[in-house]
């Protein structure tokens, strides 16, 4: 099961802070980040890639779902 991080409604940089915290608390686990702004999608995607995750983004109605899969 992926660890879910719901950051809808939060503005920059809180989505990144919460995702980073989830990474640190769940090393090696898949994360599912739900957000509602393009800016957060880009910021969380960069964080994921810089932290060694493969990042998949899909739109879900008004929201975006990012699946972060550890590469190692």
């Amino acid at each position: 099961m992926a660890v879910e991080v719901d950051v809808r409604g939060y503005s920059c940089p809180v989505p990144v802070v919460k995702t980073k915290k989830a990474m640190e608390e769940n090393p090696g686990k898949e994360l599912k980040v739900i957000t509602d702004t393009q800016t957060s999608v880009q910021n969380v995607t960069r964080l994921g890639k810089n932290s060694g995750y493969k990042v998949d983004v899909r739109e879900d109605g008004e929201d975006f779902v990012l699946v972060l899969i550890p590469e190692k």
Partner: protein
Amino acid sequence: MNLISSLMSKKWIILFGLIFGTLGALAVNWGNPANMGICVACFLRDISGGLGFHRAAVVQYLRPEIMGFALGAFVTALAFKEWRPRGGASPIIRFFLGMFVMVGALVFLGCPVRMLLRLAGGDLNGLTALAGLVFGVIVGIFFLKRGFNLGKAKPMTNTAGSIMPIMMVGLLVLAIAVPAFIFQSESGPGSQFMPLIVSLAIGLFVGFGAQRTRYCSVGAWRDIFLVKDFYLISGILAFLAAALVTNYIAGNFGAGGIYHWGFENQPISHTEHLWNFLGMGLVGIAATQIGGCPLRNLILSGEGDTDAGVTVLGYIAGAAVAHNFAVATSPAGLNTWSIAAVLAGWAFCLIIGFTMRKA
């Protein structure tokens, strides 16, 4: 290879930073005040004065750049389907943080954008301020890591999201028509400006570019220390480099030029080092708590973010407070209440930082 792919992922923000920095330097040659080609804080302060919210006669003008930033972002957000009316994440706190951003900026005499332009124009007080800004950002990160946030925004109606863009259109109409109740400086920085159409065009371009790239001159430093992310800073460094090179090419340095290297006798600047440091430090912490620099909040207000809109109104109110209550400094140095206001701002941010922790 890694370096090349890293640069490629940043190519648009670097390109935008280069153009923005070039325009920021040239704006002075085209009519804006020295070392103030673009200054979001100063220009909002001039608008506050133009509307008569403060009566500092030398800094009153409805700067079309500001309307350009917000309206450029508005049109761009619509075109790229990023228009999202939203709000409700502690607007009252954002209003006051916005006021204190302005207090800090007007004690140093510049927002983080002008800070870099001052540096690119030889004003080394920009370095003191940069150190302060980074210090303030790091204190802000301390709170972010402890779970500080201003809560969740909720989706809002198009009507609510449109308020700030409509206000900007209104300001633009006033800037063009200049009815009798609008104040207009006859001397000083407020009397120095580019032709309206040029100011507006530059503003619209910057609004477009900053919306697409998420350019933020506080977020850039935050991301380095928070997540070792060098995306935003690459745009900032491009901005600084382009402004510096442009000033040399334009002949602004050297004999007959308007700029020289040093701390003393710089245009619209003073050498109160501690208060330049703590003033810009206040901008750093408050802007980190709000989530972005004044330019970034103007851009967001154009995207329908009403919390950013409230922050912008806080800047305008803060400018009025700074000039009405003898807080804003001048080239002569500190004003009666400059120190008290900066300390009050720091106290406010620290209290907010320790107390605002929502799940």
